[in-house]
């Protein structure tokens, strides 16, 4: 129960927007305490100084999109005792996994005049598709409180309290009015993993699934409910296929949906 030395923390970046690692710097009230408990050994966004591995806790942001990164993540894994992936990029391939559904050469041509300069993989994939991962923290971006929960749980050896149920449960815990029922607003909350604190419904907005699929979502019934709120098939399809598009069962979510079956 006692520690001889401070555990070391490393933060790694792959293809991403940096938002998830920024979340750590956004823990304004706790950042210096975190630094008291963990030696920040490798965190380029915050420090030029780096301490060589191995590291006790690695936070990995971003997805694997290049051959170099596919190799680099293996080295990161070797250097890490406990590896936590943070954010939709790292846990699901992120928004950039939309490339997985199309022809990458075509994408390259749209963006770059001379695609030959670039080396990139056809897919953007989650870290867990490449190396074993000890814990996956979801969200685009991750939630600050959940990040602190993972860190403090790691420090005492507890299982982090990160429930896998729907956003709806958080929404009700918060005392929100369900905007699907009360306003007819399409909301992906019933199929989406909790963690954000039901942010969007709190702003009269339907959840758009940035925390990815919940533990046991019913995709077809969800699609039906969205359609019942007036979304067309393509819009439903796009909603599943945005920030966690490559994560099952969103990945193979139905393209065509029937109106919800309602029993007499």
């Amino acid at each position, binding site marked *: 129960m006692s520690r001889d030395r401070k555990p070391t923390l490393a933060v790694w970046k792959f293809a991403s927007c940096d938002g998830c690692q920024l979340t750590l710097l956004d823990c304004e009230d706790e950042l210096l305490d975190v630094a008291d408990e963990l030696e920040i050994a490798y965190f380029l966004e915050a420090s030029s100084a780096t301490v060589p591995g191995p590291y006790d806790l690695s936070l990995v942001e971003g997805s694997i999109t290049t051959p170099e990164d596919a190799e680099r993540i293996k080295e990161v894994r070797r250097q890490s005792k406990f590896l936590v992936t943070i954010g939709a990029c790292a846990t699901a391939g992120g928004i950039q996994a939309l490339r997985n559904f199309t022809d990458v050469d075509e994408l390259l041509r749209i963006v770059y005049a001379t695609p030959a300069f670039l080396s990139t993989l056809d897919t953007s994939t989650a870290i867990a598709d490449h190396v074993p991962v000890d814990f996956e923290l979801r969200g685009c971006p991750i939630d600050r409180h959940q990040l602190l929960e993972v860190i403090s749980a790691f420090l005492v050896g507890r299982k982090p309290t990160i429930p896998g*149920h729907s956003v*709806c449960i958080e929404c009700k*815990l918060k005392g929100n009015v369900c905007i699907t029922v009360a306003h007819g607003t399409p909301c992906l909350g*019933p199929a989406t993993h909790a963690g954000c604190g039901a942010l969007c419904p709190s702003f009269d907005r339907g959840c758009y699934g940035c925390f990815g699929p919940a533990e046991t979502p019913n995709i*077809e019934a969800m699609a039906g409910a969205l359609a019942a709120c007036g979304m067309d098939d393509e819009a439903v399809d796009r909603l599943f296929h945005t920030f966690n598009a490559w994560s099952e069962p969103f990945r193979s979510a139905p393209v065509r949906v029937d109106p919800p079956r309602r029993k007499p």
Partner: protein
Amino acid sequence: MAIVVGADGLEELIGLLRADGRSVIGPVVRDSVITHDEIEHADELPLGWTDEQEGGRYRLVATGTDEIFASATPSTSWKRYVQPERTLLVKARRAGGVIEIVDQQVERPRWAFFGIRSCDLAALGILDRVFLDPSATDPTYAARRADVFVVSAACNTPGNTCFCASMDTGPTPTSGFDLSLRELAADDGIEYLVEAGSDRGADVLASLGGRPATPDDLQRSAACHDIAVQAMGRTLRSEDPPLAAAATDHPRWDDVADRCLACGNCTMACPTCFCSTTEDHTDLSGTETERWRVWDSCFTLDFSHLHGGSVRTSTKARYRQWLLHKLVTWHDQFGSSGCVGCGRCITWCPVGIDLTAEIAALASRQETP
């Protein structure tokens, strides 16, 4: 003892309760629904509003009248007051291997539940049986429940998803209140029949202005009751739940599992669902910890977690657990149904799954197509 007061009588009543040091929780319009919140004056009540409720649908609708209680049950149940979403159970510190448990002060609020409906009152009675069990009384619940002054409101216009008449829990409360209200249309506006259900209720009633109720007033109230019973949007036959429980192979179980999102909204909206989980939190240094009780739902995978896998992995099993617990096994456990017929689980289910329809289908021999 019964009296009749005008609309200003409600303001007077709220004033009396507040003067007695109570915070009055009553129905209000918020975010386009009728819910409840602390009120200071009668003009915060939902005058001129009603609701339209259907499976998966709720709309606030103007009545064009001066009625305050023209709606069905409010969107949220009252359990959050007596069994809050999150409750601190234990707080402790550690130095070396030695633990110090920090004493907890339990808050004992003085509430008045104003305008609580019959079904919700019955729901409080059901929660009482769970949490005031003499062999394991929940201190938070007991403290929060101990001094609630109950002003009930009889339902004149039940919603489309209501079926309290089937569950024998409404629409007019018969006990459990300190004061009861019935909104009555009068020639010159709205008036309220006020009856006392307890000594302290009678004390408050005695200080209220108003005229003594006449047999005609009581007659009118009874007529409202009869109309309300007729107006229930749903029914649930009491013989059906055991039949449904016995029909373990009925294809309707698979059918409802296809439609169910397993999102847990029904359990959260239900006024009697009491299940909870515990969460442990530690500070970064690991020297302080708190254990919290948090509402949980039998629709989550963790709910039945055992080392090696959850007991109820399928949505079918989870839906069955919920439905049969509510309507069948609750009788064995607590001597009553766990359902009071408020209809919230129907209205607040995003896909409008209707337990009355499910039970009826499961109880029928007919196979669903």
